[in-house]
């Protein structure tokens, strides 16, 4: 047996420098691996910078598309953040997004409300539908302590089946019988900003991000959230309204995911389709995690990810690289960021084994 052994020690205090350094290191390693994967998949190195950065952020057309894609990503990022700050695992963001899209379309199909108010009613309906969809796992969690992870996941599948039931049945487009809903009227669409496909939904996304920042960083509720997130028992013992805070934030999480669906159908698609929500749960979690659960940091993170999605569709068209590469890159970045946290949270040291005799004296 060797005379040395490795020990692992939890760091009691982590300096800001160490935090920042490990985070940046992880991000760089992750993105570096992502670039290597892109090259391995056949993206030409000579134009990679142009495809990944210049075209999606510094050309008018590319930037417009990136920002358009960023709107729902900001919303799902905030939805993931609202739940994860409380350590509530909402892995059903996709389902709440589907419900939001369905809610908005329900209003449009049935012409609820006056024509002038139709659009706001659609967006409110989408937020409500998302909140209702997450109310089920929330209720089961609060009343019967059922694991929210599995329930949110299952309800995501149920939501997608509901969507298919509607699109292949009652809501089928009567014009051509495709499984998409009839096109929305003009008053049911968000105003175009005349910059590519970009729509006024981006203002809403920005405003909600600011409100969220105030809520979690400046308000009393934000303080409650921090305490509950760190230690639920302590929060209960000190009389913090745990159930009320949890209810508020989790419903908010569902509502934001639902609103993301509402913004996609009213802003871009102008009808309900089967493809808008795919992978949004994972993207939301990646955005919230990379943004370190900071609402304002959600904005650049979501825009950066939208840029990668945008570049992904360019790479697909020009070099036949499948969309799956974007999921792969997200997975790699998340994994490296998670792994480098080891060097943030733990101290590894090499200790000389204590001879047995001394050990007996100590104990």
């Amino acid at each position, binding site marked *: 047996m060797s005379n040395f052994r490795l020990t692992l020690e939890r760091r009691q205090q982590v300096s800001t420098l160490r935090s920042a350094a490990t985070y940046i290191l992880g991000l760089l390693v992750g993105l570096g691996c992502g670039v290597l994967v892109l090259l391995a998949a056949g993206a030409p190195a000579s134009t990679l910078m142009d495809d990944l950065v210049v075209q999606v952020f510094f050309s008018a057309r590319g930037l417009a598309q990136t920002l358009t894609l960023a709107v729902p990503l900001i919303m799902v990022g905030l939805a993931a953040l609202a739940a994860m700050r409380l350590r509530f695992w909402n892995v059903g963001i996709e389902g709440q997004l589907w419900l939001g899209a369905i809610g908005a379309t329900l209003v449009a199909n049935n012409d609820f409300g006056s024509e002038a108010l139709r659009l706001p009613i659609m967006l409110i309906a989408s937020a409500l539908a998302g909140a209702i969809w997450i109310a089920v796992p929330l209720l089961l969690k609060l009343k019967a302590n059922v*694991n929210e992870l*599995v329930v949110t996941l299952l309800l995501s599948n149920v939501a997608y089946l509901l969507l298919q039931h509607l699109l292949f049945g009652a809501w089928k487009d009567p014009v051509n019988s495709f499984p998409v809903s009839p096109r929305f009227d003009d008053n049911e669409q968000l105003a175009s900003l005349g910059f590519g496909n970009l729509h006024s939904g981006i203002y809403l996304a920005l405003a909600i991000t600011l409100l969220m920042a105030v809520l979690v960083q400046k308000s009393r509720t934000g303080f409650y959230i921090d305490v509950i997130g760190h230690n639920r028992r302590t929060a209960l013992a000190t009389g913090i309204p745990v159930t009320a805070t949890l209810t508020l934030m989790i419903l908010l999480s569902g509502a934001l995911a639902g609103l993301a669906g509402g913004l996609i159908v009213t802003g871009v698609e102008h009808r309900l389709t089967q493809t808008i929500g795919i992978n949004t749960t994972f993207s939301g979690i990646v955005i919230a*995690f990379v943004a370190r659960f900071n609402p304002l940091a959600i904005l650049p993170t979501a825009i950066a990810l939208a840029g990668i999605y945008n570049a992904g569709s360019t790479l697909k068209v020009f070099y036949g690289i499948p969309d*799956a590469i974007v*999921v*792969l890159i997200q*997975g790699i970045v*998340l994994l490296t960021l998670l792994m480098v*946290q080891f060097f943030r949270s733990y101290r590894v040291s090499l200790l000389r084994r204590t001879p047995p005799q001394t050990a007996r004296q100590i104990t």
Partner: protein
Amino acid sequence: MEQFITHWLGSTPAFAIPLALASMGLVLCERAGVLNMGAEGYMSLGAMTAAVLTLTLGNPAIGILCAVLAGATLALVFGFAVVVMRCEQILAGLATMAVGLGIAGVVGRSYVHKSFEGLQPLDLPWLDQLPLVGQLLFHQDILVYLTVLIGFALWFLLEHTRAGLKIRAVGEDPASADVAGVQVQVQQLLAITASGALCGLAGAYLSVASSSIWVDNMVAGRGWIALALVVFARWEPLKALAGAFLFGAIEALLPRLQAIGIPAPIYLMNMLPYLFTIAVLLVAACSGSKKGMEPAALGQPYVRQDRH
């Protein structure tokens, strides 16, 4: 009617086997205290690997073997992240899920929609001639029999062997297991790798045995259903096997109903397994019995120095 039932039950394994293999793998992993959200990714990787190798080499056996290895390797990456680096299990699982889905999509790109000669059903001599049950029970491919065998082997391992006791001890109370001399990290890594291998096999079944083709998004959420099945089965391998056949039978019923022209709201009926699982979760939570419940240390990273 008899023909309907034969067709229905005969097509059940095609739906049930992937769920059974993946959920039994996850049962093993969760009994060792590791919550593994990566199943969907390992299954995709396995399905793609098996299909691509069968297409290029023409030998399904090699394809299936490599799919098992691929699933195990990706799971080992997850294991390194959560067991050695003590990452948050749910997030690391989701990350490896994405890596598996991504690799499957990117590498399998040029092999989509190319059909090949997959695994053939194995006719057991004269047993398959038995009326009614003959074709059902004894006209299946070898993986179907293997799955049932794995189910019983896992049950025996967990409930009746020393190795199984160690795994369960780690999942219930790693600190005590550690004091008793069980190498917590080794047990968890073994369980994680085995679960990845089973998920890889589940994926291989999808591409090589039940469809003989590779298409994008072939796994289509089965990894998530397998994850729910684990809870549905109360963390017991044989119940997971039975649950998978129950879910598989429901899934297999729908195309049959359509085939004979019964107008059924298929999408609504497809919701039933999910709603049923939620109901089971609720009943289990309300009944308050602690027996056969979730492993106590599920999802918590173990650091020896945290021991009290």
